[in-house]
């Protein structure tokens, strides 16, 4: 950017700010329900301040270190605005509207030099476009973080280890088993085995929609790890279609105890531990 233009812009900072805020207030999309005019003024002032300081280096690259403060302010702004309920479009329009304020000023100043006016306009245009992309990126990044956190939470919540009897643990798996989840399931299960000193773990897969070779692989891994710890694993809840897929895929589960229902798995566990369940004459009705 031309040094003269820069000094001119700096000198007229106040005017630009006024024009910018006026532009924003005139905008039909102004959300005065979400943000007060005063706050809007302060935000605009901060951003313009940082921006004018950054362009004094004549380098108009948003990625460069001179622009770090500007990018920081934009990130902050994008996050707070997203929380306040602005749409990403509105946030990026906020930055774009600065463009018009710059043009208004430059148009008046560089009336006699159309070539320079054009050059400066293009540069400002590029710069502000980049800045608005930054706000967009931050917005998306923020959303992604939320999604990631929720995935983690879902994984945590969805793998409860239940102690059904002294020495018997049950682990109902609901939803698709992928590598990351298997890891969590395995860790939880093994940890619980150590803590409770249980000898038998029942993995109930009736809530797993499909079993492909990868899921089977994960199940086999879990069973092997349980065995290494010194406990025995029973897989229960194998539905007809899952049995079909397993056989069609040629997966060998012969070394693993499998049962159709949790009830029969529990029965097997009892017999493995030498526990007997039987009816008595005494009945209690609640």
């Amino acid at each position: 950017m031309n040094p003269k233009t820069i000094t001119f812009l700096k000198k007229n900072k106040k005017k630009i700010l006024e024009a910018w805020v006026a532009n924003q207030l005139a905008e039909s999309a102004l959300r005065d329900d979400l943000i007060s005019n005063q706050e809007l003024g302060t935000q605009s002032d901060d951003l313009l301040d940082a921006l004018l300081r950054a362009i004094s280096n004549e380098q108009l690259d948003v990625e460069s270190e001179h622009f770090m403060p500007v990018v920081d302010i934009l990130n902050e702004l994008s996050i707070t605005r997203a929380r306040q309920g602005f749409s990403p479009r509105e946030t990026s329009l906020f930055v774009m509207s600065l463009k018009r304020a710059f043009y208004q000023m430059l148009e008046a100043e560089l009336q006699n030099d159309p070539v320079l006016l054009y050059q400066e306009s293009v540069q400002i245009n590029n710069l502000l476009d980049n800045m608005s992309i930054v706000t967009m990126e931050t917005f998306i990044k923020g959303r992604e973080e939320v999604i990631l956190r929720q995935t983690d939470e879902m994984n945590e919540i969805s793998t409860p280890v239940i102690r059904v009897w002294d020495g018997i643990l049950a682990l109902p798996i609901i939803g698709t088993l992928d590598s990351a989840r298997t890891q969590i399931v395995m860790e939880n299960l093994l940890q619980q085995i150590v803590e409770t000193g249980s000898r038998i773990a029942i993995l109930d897969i009736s809530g797993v929609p499909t079993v492909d070779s990868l899921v089977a692989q994960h199940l086999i891994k879990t069973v092997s790890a349980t065995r290494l710890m010194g406990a025995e694993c029973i897989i229960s809840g194998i539905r007809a279609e899952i049995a079909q897929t397993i056989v069609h895929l040629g997966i060998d589960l012969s070394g693993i105890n499998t049962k159709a229902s949790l009830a029969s798995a529990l029965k097997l566990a009892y017999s493995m531990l030498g526990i007997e369940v039987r009816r008595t004459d005494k009945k209690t009705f609640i």
Partner: protein
Amino acid sequence: MDKIPILKMGEFLLVTIQVDLYDRLALALESDLINMVSKTEARGVLIDISAVSIVDSFMGRILGNIASMSKIMDAETVVVGMQPAVAITLVELGLTLTGVHTALDVEKGMELLRSKIGYLPKDEEELYDDII
């Protein structure tokens, strides 16, 4: 060099590994243990690895070797107290230690050994009734 003590308990040998095993120590343990089995004519070997937090494929192989060697000399091997992280690592390495018996802790390991060789001391019978 460190040495891992091998304790004789009746018909069984008890090895408690308290340090992280490095390769030479593991090799020394292997030969010491097998010599001890042949000397004492032990019927069972119990290896407690509850304090071991790091394993590699070599360690896994040594455990497998000890089990096979003892088996040839008519002694059963039980590995007890494996940490969850260790179990996961071994599975990821593809070492499922076939031929090695496992148990949750020393007590259950001893019980398993006794049942394997068909030996249960009379006065302790009642003691194990309540363990499920």
